[in-house]
């Protein structure tokens, strides 16, 4: 049987994302995010939908956390924490469902994007999310973005990471 998490990890790293495996406890999660964003002057958290508030709640106590950011703070914050709707093993992509407050902003505006991905939400291929049977068919109904590595360009000669979107993408794979 294919280990989807291992395949995901391999392909995500190939796409220049970082993947950290993390226990699914508030403390472990807080430690991991704190470590990843330890230099951040501002951390913004999108509203969770799939993981449960009790797991996420600890992040609100991190130094630099901005509780209710205005647009000015969103434009200048350093790190955004986003929850993934799904992960895709074959491509190493995280799939983020848009629409809940701050999801677009945290996954796009800050130089560091930390994405929380629950292991059981990893599917084999991108097209699986277009199957009405997969994840209750939500993939066919929601506004989604597949994110595969940090934003990049080859228009300036060599490949450069960090263009209009995040320079770094860290996936916390929640075991």
């Amino acid at each position, binding site marked *: 049987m294919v280990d989807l998490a291992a395949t995901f990890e391999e392909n995500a790293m190939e796409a220049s994302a970082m993947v950290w495996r993390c226990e699914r406890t508030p403390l472990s999660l807080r430690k991991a995010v704190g470590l990843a964003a330890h230099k951040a002057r501002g951390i913004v958290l999108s509203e969770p939908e799939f993981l449960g508030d009790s797991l996420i709640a600890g992040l609100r106590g991190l130094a630099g956390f901005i509780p209710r950011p205005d647009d000015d703070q969103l434009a200048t914050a350093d790190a955004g924490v986003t929850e993934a709707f799904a992960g895709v093993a074959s*491509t190493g992509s995280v799939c983020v469902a848009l629409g809940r407050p701050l999801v677009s902003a945290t996954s*796009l505006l800050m130089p560091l994007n930390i994405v929380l991905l629950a292991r059981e939400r990893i599917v084999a291929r991108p097209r699986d999310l277009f199957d009405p049977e997969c994840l209750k068919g939500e993939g066919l109904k929601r*506004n989604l973005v597949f994110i595969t590595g940090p934003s*990049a360009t080859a228009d300036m*000669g060599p490949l450069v990471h960090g*263009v*209009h979107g995040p320079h770094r993408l860290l996936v916390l794979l929640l075991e």
Partner: protein
Amino acid sequence: MNVTEIEPKSAAVGVRADTPRDVANKSDKDRLLRAIRMSLDIESTTVRANTQLFNRGRYRAVAELPDYDALKDQARRIKEKSIASLPELIPILKSSVRAHGGHVFVANTAEDACRYILDVCHWRAAKMVVKGKSITSEEIRLNHILEKEGIEVVESDLAEFILQLADEQPSHFLAPALHYSRERITALFKRKFKTELPLDTGEELTRFARERLRDKFLYADVGITGANLIAADTGTLMLVESEGNIRLASYLPPVHIAIAGVEKIIPTRQEMAPFLDLLSASAVGQKMSVYTSFLSPPLTDPPFALPGKPMKPREFHLVLIDNGRMQMREDPVFKEALNCIRCGACLNSCANFQTVGGHAFGGETYSGGIGGSWEAGTSKLENARFSEMCTGCTRCVNQCPVRIDIPWLNENLARQLNQKELPATLRSVLGSVTGAATEDRSAPIAKIFFGNYHYFAKWGTRFSSIANLISGDSKKRHKDGEGEVKETISPARLLMERWLGLDHRRGLPPFPKQTLVQAARQLTAPSSKGRDTKVVVFADVFTNYGMARRGIATIEVLRALGADVVVSESVPEGRAALSQGMIATAKLHARRAAMELDSHVSDGRDIVVVEPSSLSMFRREFSHLLDSKERFERFRSRAFEPVEYVVRMLAKSGRMAQQVFDISKSKVGYRLFFHAHCQQKTIGCEEPTLALFRELGFDVVTSNVECCGMAGSFGYKKDFYDLSMAVGADLFGQVVQQDRNGGTRQIVASGTSCTEQMHAGFDRSVLHPMEILASLLEVQESAAKLGELEEEDRELESDVASLKRGRKEVSKS
């Protein structure tokens, strides 16, 4: 490289160099030729490096897709179905978008689209628009219209940002600034922004551009994007990108306008699934692009409102553009182009595009092989003149994720352009004498010549001594008044260049004293008794009149393997005519070849075709040229490449290759450089040669170029000789590189024109694989005939050389 090195060569002699804009519209030939010169001078190195990088990535990425072919079939079915049902899908899409609170406008023309977008901007008092990459917005010249009305247009895709600064049109529809090296971007930024900041790395340039663009996103009133696909059932846009600028343009400003051609609509969101894997792999050689969004706008998040920027409600407009597409849809040939998903795989796999890019091989908006149909469909036929640069090599065919037959589109464009020529008596007479179809007699003389090459080859062979004298020596040397030796083009070659467009620098292969058909008649055929495998070797025009030895070697090898072999009459099968857009003539030729082979096939004979471009006709192009699918299938299923057939015969008989061929007899050593013909690769006939030679113990390396650059008549033409040689340089470099690594290798090429191109690069023998195999046979029944032909070739070359010497003496005296 410094800035001065990238100045065009012509600048050095005080001539104003062409800019890409000067030569964007190629409705006249002169601009096409200037564009080729400009691109070869300035852009070629960078274009080649970048396209080849994409191309290698694509080969790697699609190889990792386990069901690549099934995905292509699925995508093709979805696109075909969508195009067929467009009139029904448009109202469904309108309802879906309106159900979310969005607006839809269907624009019949580019002007209608621009007017609507301008109206939206005026209603919302927009002062600044930020744009994501959209080739369709280039097609409708949107920037120009908005800027004329005082609205600032900010291109946010970094490639488009570069082009906006440089005032150039895109050279590639996926990577619009693909022709820009890092050094040229540095020079451009320093010049335009008058900055002393260090901009010597990709990171510095990216940071510099990002800092200038971030505020534009935050304060823009309107964001404009394109769309890769649109689902009618949900109004979902599929948006693929790497930088994040499309996400920003659709998320930050209060108004989002998406512009898309109507052909982007597919029935359902679920049917977007196969394109997820296909698009990124085909386009950028990645498993998935950085961002692939599925949005049914307007978004629910509140738009961004920084201090000083008024909060406005979110709004979405979808502008669907016809601008000629519905007319293309009605055309039985050009509706094919509407299947295009703009991945650019056809551009990156094209040897000519790799060498000059889209500023030469492209028009004002669209570029590459697929671009001609789009320029013609959305503007006018003459703007598609650059499609002449499609040589029909077919390397794009298998790379297209939706299986578009791009060469066929370009052959049809050439046909239409031929018919635009004014009628002239000489062309009409020449067309009539050579047997060209009536509709093709208005084509330029050069095209009638190349398209009916069999006619001239037949007469050239009959009078080979005179013909070789005329065509052999292109330069005439004489002393001027001061005793200096001067070279002038020989009058015959000058006339050929003027009338037939044959470049005087290109060596012409001599006409043989004996054709393949004549030489084969002199062979003693073994008794057919007990020989169950029956073969007819098709005497294609190129082998019959130019490379008879290859045909004789083929006969000898097949007989040695136990086949009962006969040779057909030499008739054209339509390749030459098709390559000139003389489709009616190609149909005549194809039917003639089919009739010639009919009785052989009925006798149970398989067809072996030595020249790969001729074989490709049987395997591919006859589907367009013969009367029915059944007729096409009758010949497709029986036509084989010689080595492919040898491998089949060996497998059938259960014999090992070593039992028939003895490598120790090789007269050319054991190191081979094999260059397979482009069309041979497309129809999957490269592998048998490689496998057989390796099985026999040869050390074989192959070229990885898509095409040698000769491409039939293309490299002979004075308009394209320089380009042909520039393309060939890649192949020559690979030969030299391989030679350096352990010593000279015997060059082996399957195609006639590839052989001629190799001769242009190297003063060395070039053999066909069957010639090598024939020399390895345990029993060489026809060795005497081959020796005789070799001797004739030597005599011929010697005759031509002595004639040249004689003429020099005459000119001296």
